[in-house]
């Protein structure tokens, strides 16, 4: 484990080259890529937003969450429900509800008719859920491996619940077939690149905000709780609020990322948010570099690009490859690609 000074030095603005290069690439992408590729890139960037949150909690907070898919899903389902309702003629209910024998809209779907409520829900619901969940565990000083195991149980329970409540969640197939968002047709020309710019903007804002946060006293205390939680207590701080706040922020980023992903992908389903996808999210960050914000974005892009390339041709191969990546990165390259860029492998 690196000592303190080395870490703070990493996040002093000394190596600003990589983020700028990435930004330059992102800015020219809409003019260089086909609309299909741009959509793919935008999806991966939405996942990058989630990855930033993992850098905050896992890299700097030492909190391993194997349940980020839950918060990704909360954001994704919030916007998906809104889009489902927006496309409906008056008085009708979504087709999958009719097929499962429902006659009226479930009560908790109603508020999602409002665009304003939906936007608020995308941010507030994952944040609150993350805060409540992590507080319940952290305030009793349960953490580390235990917390990771509990988050995995959470993601299993969440995905199973969605699959079994087919009549109100769309079940295993999830929610899909969206036509418009806030009155803008999803298929109309220009929408794709507009959504891309929005995603890029959110990613940049999240990056800058987290960079600031990690350099602040909050970031220092978070790293201190990671390295010696009891020492932090002896110094008179209660680490719990810091850890809960970090987890809530990561959950919020996951939710926003999930909502944007759903817009680009046109689907949200349990297959994207369950136990296995939740752990895959960790591998993006492990490969990019758990301490590095820029590294996490690169990791999310690279792993998903690789996944896209490999799994379409050889679906079986992808699982072997991902398993091997996990083992390789964790044992030989704990700082990920960002560590390589620094010239140190371990």
């Amino acid at each position, binding site marked *: 484990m690196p000592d303190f000074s080395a870490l703070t030095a990493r996040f002093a603005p000394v190596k600003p080259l990589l983020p700028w290069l990435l930004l330059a690439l992102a800015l020219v992408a809409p003019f260089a890529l086909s609309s299909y590729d741009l959509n793919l890139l935008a999806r991966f960037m939405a996942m990058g937003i989630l990855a930033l949150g993992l850098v905050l909690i*896992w890299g700097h907070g*030492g909190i*391993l969450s*194997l349940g980020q898919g839950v918060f990704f899903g909360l954001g994704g389902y919030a916007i998906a429900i809104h889009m489902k309702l927006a496309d409906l003629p008056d008085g009708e209910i979504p087709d999958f509800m009719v097929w499962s024998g429902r006659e009226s809209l479930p009560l908790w779907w109603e508020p999602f008719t409002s665009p304003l409520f939906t936007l608020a829900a995308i941010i507030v619901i994952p944040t609150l859920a993350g805060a409540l*969940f992590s507080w*319940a*565990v952290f305030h*009793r*000083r*349960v953490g*580390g*491996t*235990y917390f*990771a*195991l*509990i988050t*995995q*149980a*959470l993601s*299993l*329970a*969440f995905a*199973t*619940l969605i*699959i*079994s*409540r087919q009549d109100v969640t769309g079940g295993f197939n999830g929610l899909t077939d969206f036509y418009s968002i806030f009155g803008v047709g999803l298929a109309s020309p220009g929408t794709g690149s507009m959504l891309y710019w929005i995603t890029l903007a959110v990613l940049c804002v999240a990056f800058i905000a987290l960079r600031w946060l990690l350099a602040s006293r909050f970031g220092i205390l978070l790293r201190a709780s990671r390295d010696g939680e*009891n020492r932090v207590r002896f110094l008179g701080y209660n680490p719990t609020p810091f850890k809960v706040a970090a987890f809530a922020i990561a959950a919020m980023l996951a939710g926003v990322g999930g909502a944007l992903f759903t817009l680009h992908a046109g689907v949200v389903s349990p297959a994207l948010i369950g*136990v296995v996808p939740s*752990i895959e999210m*960790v*591998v993006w960050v*492990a490969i990019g570099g758990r301490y590095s914000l820029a590294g996490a974005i690169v990791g999310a892009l690279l792993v998903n690009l690789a996944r896209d390339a490999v799994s379409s041709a050889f679906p*079986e191969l992808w*699982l*072997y490859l*991902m*398993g*091997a*990546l*996990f*083992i390789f990165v*964790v*044992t030989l390259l*704990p700082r990920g690609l960002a560590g390589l860029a620094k010239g140190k492998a371990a």
Partner: protein
Amino acid sequence: MDALFLNQLFNGASLASLYLLAALGLALSFGLMRVINMAHGEMLMLGGYLAWMTLLVVPGAMGIILAIPVAFIGAAAMGGLILSTLIRRLSARPLDTLLATWGVSLILQQGARDLFGAVGVEVRAPEWLTGSFVAFGVTLPSARLFIIAIAALVLGALALVLLKTRIGLLVRAVNQDRMMASATGIDVQRVDLTVFCLGSGVAGLAGVMLALLGPVTPNVGQSYIIPAFLVVVMGGLGSIVGTTASAIILGLFAALAQIFVDVSVAQMLLLVFVILFIQVRPQGVVAVKTRQLDA
């Protein structure tokens, strides 16, 4: 008491037995090394496939009895391999161990899918395990009774080993204070290896039991391993009594909850129950009294 309640009580007991068999190895090695092997669920799967293969070779009524030691040894060997090639390299990093062993789990699952097919294989229980008894108006399938009996046997044997043998003494010593044990000349790494193999073997044995209940699929271990993780969280560090108690509590809870709600809600309730339990006893069902700050 009505039949449904008694029936679920019995199902809960057999579920608890499976949770226990799956969780014992996890809890023992977590107590010793503070690491969780995420590929532990695949030891169940391995045990299931080994049982299936044993029954191909020895189809008779005694095949299943023979399958138990085969699965135990096979899974124990695999566990030993994972420990010595991977986990040992990561010993000071528990969370990284979690991730690396998850990688192993993915590879093992996909390997099984390529070798045996994704659909799964059927182990035919011998005739003496296919019947059932009726007591108090409840049907008790022999296979489930067999599972409960095996779990009790394993637990008894494990307790004997830990309390009465020399290796058990060493295990308890390392469990109590690793550094001190090492300083007195105990080969800590060998103790780790023994416990890890033992725990993996028990999981392999649990795989044989799973094979009696349904088809063996590449991800058969996954549906039991996450509750088993919760058993470890709730049990208390490295305590067999705690692990047993929490396996029984969670097994009964999961089965009895299903009287009122469906399986998926029961799963959510199980998690809520564990989180609520932590509010009351964060140190687990049984906690060793210690003055250590970071236990």
